[in-house]
């Protein structure tokens, strides 16, 4: 990372830690939501931005994760165990959902995953014996970890932030390992990758499974954050939103999700000054952002940097990076 970038990250990190001390509970709830959704978005960015596999199922995985925790913790399962279970369950399901990606790509894959999302919603709503159906599950407790009570808004935020930090470090590690290289190869040219000995099938499934498990882990925090989950919260609206966050932030860019989620969480709140018209304003804003930076906010910064370099060294600027 460039020195410039390093400084920005440092500033952002300090802001993230300091913020809750200046905010009212609502503000803390917002940034907690940001932290949780960022985890899910990082997962989608891995599947979509790096491995180039479009998925409209991330919202469903957040839901599966949330229900796992909401169902296990009241049964006396320690939060940490339930948290892990959510991750593993979504890893397994994500692996299976990856198989269609071995056959079809692009919009076909998008619609398969979208169908999956809706099916998950139907199961969550209809299997009342398990999920309490449309009524949802109220009051998932916030965990005590080694004596640390996270019931307070600020404590729970730090739990989310901590989890986010650890998971993004892990992702960072994976992306700089040969796996990261393999994922990029998968996105840019699967056929060539195959001829270079890359087991593209295994990497594709991995990309799906890991991305999905991150979605599940996000959900594991979502349940105790909101303390009420219902099937509707995880219908395709959420999947669309997560996709929006990744694209707006800059897909295939490590920090894209952080920025994208921040925009998607804060902008609507911010626009509520326009009273009844805030959703219109928000939708318009998103479209404008995309017109000016189709490769995402960070993509734009990337491109301008390249253009500048281009002027100097004569390397052509790149437009790709917005996934397939």
């Amino acid at each position: 990372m460039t020195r410039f970038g390093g400084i920005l990250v440092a500033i952002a990190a300090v802001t993230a830690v300091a913020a809750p001390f200046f905010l009212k509970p609502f503000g803390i709830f917002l940034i907690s939501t940001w932290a949780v959704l960022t985890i899910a978005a990082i997962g989608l960015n891995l599947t979509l931005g790096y491995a180039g596999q479009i998925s409209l199922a991330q919202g469903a995985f957040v839901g599966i994760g949330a229900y796992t925790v909401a169902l296990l913790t009241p049964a006396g399962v320690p939060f940490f165990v339930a948290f892990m279970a959510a991750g593993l369950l979504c890893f397994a399901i994500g692996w299976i959902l990856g198989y269609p990606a071995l056959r079809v790509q692009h919009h076909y894959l998008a619609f398969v995953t979208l169908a999956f999302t809706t099916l998950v919603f139907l199961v969550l709503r209809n299997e009342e014996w398990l999920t309490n159906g449309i009524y949802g599950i109220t009051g998932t407790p916030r965990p005590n970890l080694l004596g640390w009570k996270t019931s307070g808004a600020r404590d729970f935020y730090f739990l989310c932030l901590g989890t986010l930090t650890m998971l993004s470090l892990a992702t960072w590690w994976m992306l700089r390992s040969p796996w990261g290289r393999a994922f990029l190869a998968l996105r840019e040219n699967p056929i060539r990758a195959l001829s270079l000995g890359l087991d593209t099938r295994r990497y594709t499934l991995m990309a799906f499974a890991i991305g999905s498990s991150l979605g599940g882990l996000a959900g594991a925090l979502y349940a105790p954050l909101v303390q009420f989950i219902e099937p509707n919260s995880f219908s395709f609206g959420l999947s669309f939103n997560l996709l929006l966050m990744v694209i707006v932030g800059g897909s295939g860019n490590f920090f894209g999700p952080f920025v994208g989620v921040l925009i998607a969480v804060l902008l609507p709140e911010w626009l509520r000054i326009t009273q009844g018209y805030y959703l219109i304003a928000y939708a318009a804003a998103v479209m404008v952002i995309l017109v000016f930076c189709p490769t995402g906010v960070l993509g734009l910064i990337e491109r301008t940097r390249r253009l500048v370099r281009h002027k100097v060294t004569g390397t052509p600027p790149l437009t790709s990076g917005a996934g397939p």
Partner: protein
Amino acid sequence: MLRSVLFAPVIVTSLGLTSPVHAQSTVYIPAILELSGAGAVSGTNFRDGMLLAIDEINAKGGILGKKIDTPLLDTQSDAGTSRAQVQKVLDNKPYVIIGPVFSGSVLVDMLLTQQAEIPEIVGGEAAAITQKGNPYIFRTSFGQQFSIPKIANYMRDRIKAKTVAVLWVNNDFGKGGRDTFIKEMNSRDIRVVADISTESGQTDFSADVVKLKGATADAIFVYLNEEESARFLREAKKQGINKPLIGETTLLGQKVIDLAGEAANGVRGHVGLTIDAPIPAVQEFAARFKMRFNYACDHNGIKGYTAVYFIKHVTEKIRKFDSGAFAEAAHGMTITPKDEPGILMEATWDKNGDIDRISFLGEVVDGKQKIVKTLPKLGK
């Protein structure tokens, strides 16, 4: 990351923007409503009824000399969002909170308002809401545990039904009604021979009507939202269903009648709140509403309107803006139109925050809702 640095202050400002500097001359009574998404119809009706009341009251000098300051916060018909919005208004120390209408949202919000000890006046009708011993929750209409039994009695006493079919919309409103209904039917040993779920926003009801025709039911209980009710009634007429169609409030609402046209004729059932109630006050209100917003208000409009007058009256009784005292006083209080015209119909709030009013049995006769019988308050 650049943007996040730029946006970080926004977190703070966004709060600055959302916490109105309410001067001493106003009382802060925020409303959290379904203004977009699936619940928008109910939410906007509720909102407009509420606004009407607020303007009337403020025009007359407000409550105890303070003008009502009611920012509208949209839940997008999503529980998570509504929770966030409640959190937001709680940060600004509200006196009372109005809304939301969706029971799911109510169930999550009431956890917070209870913690903060702020009364919440909701439009939700799910039975569960008032069964959690929450001393800060108040209804503006019958909970399903009161309205559905009235339907059940109607089925037994008037229709003399031995077997019934139930058609319900598969959201928390419809499911709640359906579950209560089945319970009530069993307790009156009436057999439920068909139990059909429909999707909210469903457009084609032919399959459901076919199933209903197949079922040998003496009567059909229809528990859907407005436009779905209308679509169903049209399909039912098309396929010539000849069983009595029984509904609860919505099905007999003017909106459904307008949408379904003559297909609505012959529909009967229980009406909790209706602008067609044979009560002058209600009809005058309906007229004022129509004049201002130029559409016919439904029961949610009445809920919103009476909610505000409920707050006004209780506050004037306790003579101060004290959330705790409000909750205290409101339980077991009966408000008559004599003391408070804006309440439209005499209403009593019991110890759980459930409301008790007179209600009606109605029937749709050539495109108009006709009240055939007035049911007394349960308390009497």
